[in-house]
């Protein structure tokens, strides 16, 4: 069967409309007991924080399922002028063969294409975490009750590990 070649990805640029990220960072409605907050700082070389970086997440529901019609599993946040993003979601369960995790996709000017990384809640065995040397950089730090901190360092010291796909 003939195959079309995927369109070339290109940088998001610096001017992604603010309104496209508005309200998309809250994956839960109301105030369920299992709601968590994930925040972090996104930096470039030399630890400089970046404004209007777009982060998208994809995660399982509390039971580890990716096909729950009652829980979207998808969200988008933009960093603010201080380089900080924020998601409100639930703690994902373990999908078969996987440790609980949140998939991250990062888009920004100066990135010719999307970057992919994964946030874990612990060092529990996981086939994706297993390919990473600096495992601790992908494990979120507890940051108060139901709060997790996950910083993303695009380049330089303590650089976040990223996946090809």
């Amino acid at each position: 069967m003939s195959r079309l070649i995927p369109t070339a990805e290109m940088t998001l640029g610096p001017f992604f409309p603010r309104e496209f990220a508005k309200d998309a960072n809250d994956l839960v409605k109301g105030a369920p007991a299992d709601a968590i907050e994930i925040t972090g700082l996104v930096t470039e070389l030399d630890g400089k924080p970046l404004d209007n970086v777009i982060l998208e997440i994809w995660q399982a529901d509390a039971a580890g399922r990716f096909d729950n019609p009652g829980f979207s599993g998808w969200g988008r946040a933009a960093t603010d002028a201080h380089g900080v993003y924020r998601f409100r979601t639930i703690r994902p369960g373990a999908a078969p063969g996987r440790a609980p995790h949140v998939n991250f996709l990062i888009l920004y000017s100066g990135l010719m294409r999307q970057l992919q990384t994964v946030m874990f809640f612990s060092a529990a065995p996981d086939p994706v975490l297993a390919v990473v040397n600096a495992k601790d950089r992908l494990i979120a730090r507890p940051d108060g009750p139901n709060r997790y901190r996950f910083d993303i360092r695009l380049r330089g010291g303590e650089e976040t590990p990223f996946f090809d796909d």
Partner: protein
Amino acid sequence: MATRIEPRDPLTQAQGVEQGYAQTARRWPSQPLLRRPHGVAELSGPRDLAHRLPPVKGDLAGYGIRRALGQLVRLRIRVLDEDGTPLPGTVVELWHCNSAGKYIHPNDTHDAPVDPNFYGAARLLTGDSGLIELRTIKPGAYPVPDTGGWWRPPHVHLSVWGRVWLSRLVTQMFFPGEPLNEADAILNAIRDPGARERCVARLAPSTSNEMIFEHQLVVRGRKGTATLP
């Protein structure tokens, strides 16, 4: 049937540090990207994006009291997967600057004027044949706000989703015959000339007051059983 994602072809996909685009050397990771196995997490994707991301203003030239300044254009953009199957009901986000090269964004410091009748962002759902269509004006060129920057040719930013998490596509559409296309550090980061050409829209015949540009986006993903490495 499951969706399969094949590795990127470095000839048709750019990545890394690009000479002439200084920000890439501050932002692209210095460490090699890691290969990971693909399972349900990577090969599934959100099903409710049309609900999470509701439509935003479809006619960018008709937002104000008067028509936006610039050459009226109609964009027809089709979204397909690698098998050539159209993706109906999928979200397409689109944003571009005004005819003077200025974005409606607080971070745009370019001293070009704002057009009060132009609105630079739309979000639409594809129809049955994977097509979106909207009226706007042709964007202007502008200087890149980066160390040793250059002039960006007129372009439209596009953001679409395929069937799974790994099919996400964010790209740009260019206009045919623009001299700045030849020197653009972003378009020319694509090594394969055919792949660059596919990022340039096609001018279609028009007898109305709008120039018509047709374009095609191919998101990653083929039908087939996922092969785990």
